[in-house]
């Protein structure tokens, strides 16, 4: 099979990482070891083909730092929480499966968000619907609509930080528009369950203008409402 050739520039971060890896396993942090590692890495990357990781071309280290600190704090807090649930609540624990529709349809952002959510104890990514960029989270010890909504908002906030760190420009514009308008994307469970007409009347004309300026047409409601359409069948195998 003929494979598309990846330009070396796209593989450079991976090669550098593998070079560092080589230094680490030899415990010899010198330039020579790094070079040998990088040569081996180049050969490996060429022989064992992987689809290249196409980033958005932007990287904001400040938001990356904010994301990392928030992640560490949440991880430590949630580790103790899950340990406490295991010891104190035990067999009586109630769980929920919560769907979170993400803003971004970029595979990298969806993957990173799923990873970040799965690493924080108490939530587990059960399934991903790639066409609608929806994550299905299994959350430990959630037994009310408010708690479920809190988990959903939290997941969207995690995604917002990841988008601010390395998302593409249109996603960043969506996050900024949301911040300006003071609302979060997507629908909560109660909003989704309500008939379409009663959904708060949709955004006002000013909101529409702002969203259009942010590079996203206000078709979100239509997309969510037409989720019943037959082309959204990526998780059809769930039944089998």
């Amino acid at each position, binding site marked *: 099979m003929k494979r598309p050739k990846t330009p070396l520039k796209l593989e450079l971060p991976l090669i550098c990482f593998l070079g560092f890896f080589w230094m680490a396993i030899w415990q010899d942090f010198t330039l020579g070891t790094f070079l040998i590692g990088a040569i081996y890495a180049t050969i490996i990357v060429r022989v064992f083909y992987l689809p290249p990781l196409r980033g958005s071309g932007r990287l904001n280290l400040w938001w990356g730092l904010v994301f990392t600190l928030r992640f560490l704090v949440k991880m430590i807090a949630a580790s103790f929480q899950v340990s406490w649930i*295991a010891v104190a609540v035990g067999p009586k624990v*109630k769980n929920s*499966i919560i769907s979170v529709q993400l803003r971004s349809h970029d595979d990298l952002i969806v993957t990173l968000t799923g*990873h970040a959510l799965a*690493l924080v*104890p108490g939530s587990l990514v*059960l399934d991903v619907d790639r066409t609608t960029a929806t994550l299905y989270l299994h959350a430990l010890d959630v037994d009310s609509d408010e708690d479920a909504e809190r988990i959903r908002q939290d997941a969207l906030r995690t995604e917002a930080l990841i988008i601010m760190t390395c998302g593409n420009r249109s996603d960043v514009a969506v996050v900024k528009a949301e911040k300006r308008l003071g609302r979060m994307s997507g629908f909560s*469970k109660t909003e989704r369950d309500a008939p379409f007409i009663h959904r708060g009347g949709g955004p006002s004309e000013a909101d529409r203008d702002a969203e259009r300026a942010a590079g996203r047409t206000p078709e979100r409601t239509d997309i969510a409402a037409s989720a019943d359409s*037959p082309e959204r069948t990526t998780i059809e195998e769930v*039944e089998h």
Partner: protein
Amino acid sequence: MFDSLDADLILDAVASVLLVLGGLMSLAAGVGLVRLPDLHSRMHAATKPQVLGLLSLLLAAAITWRSWEWVAIVLLAWGLQLLTAPVSAHVVGRSGYRTKHMRRDLLTHDELASAVERISRDIPPSRG
């Protein structure tokens, strides 16, 4: 001389606190495996506290050896665990859901079931 002694003492104290913390996280994972009721809740207990548990054990090791090279290796090991742990958790969780190895009575919301139902309704029986 006293200074270096104090520094050693402090570092050893930090390392021992981290070791105990890592051990407690492993203990919590074990307790969770026994006490929690179904596959998915057990997945939470078994895989997740270990992210912090492994980090504290590895940091304790790096502090005990007092070397920056080990810090790099330790962070690498932890990073590789960060990359792989969610993947295995996701695969086990997903196959558990699809093969119905779970207790539905413990779920208060199941928004995946409604999505599955909505989609399977739209598929003609010949394909389903």
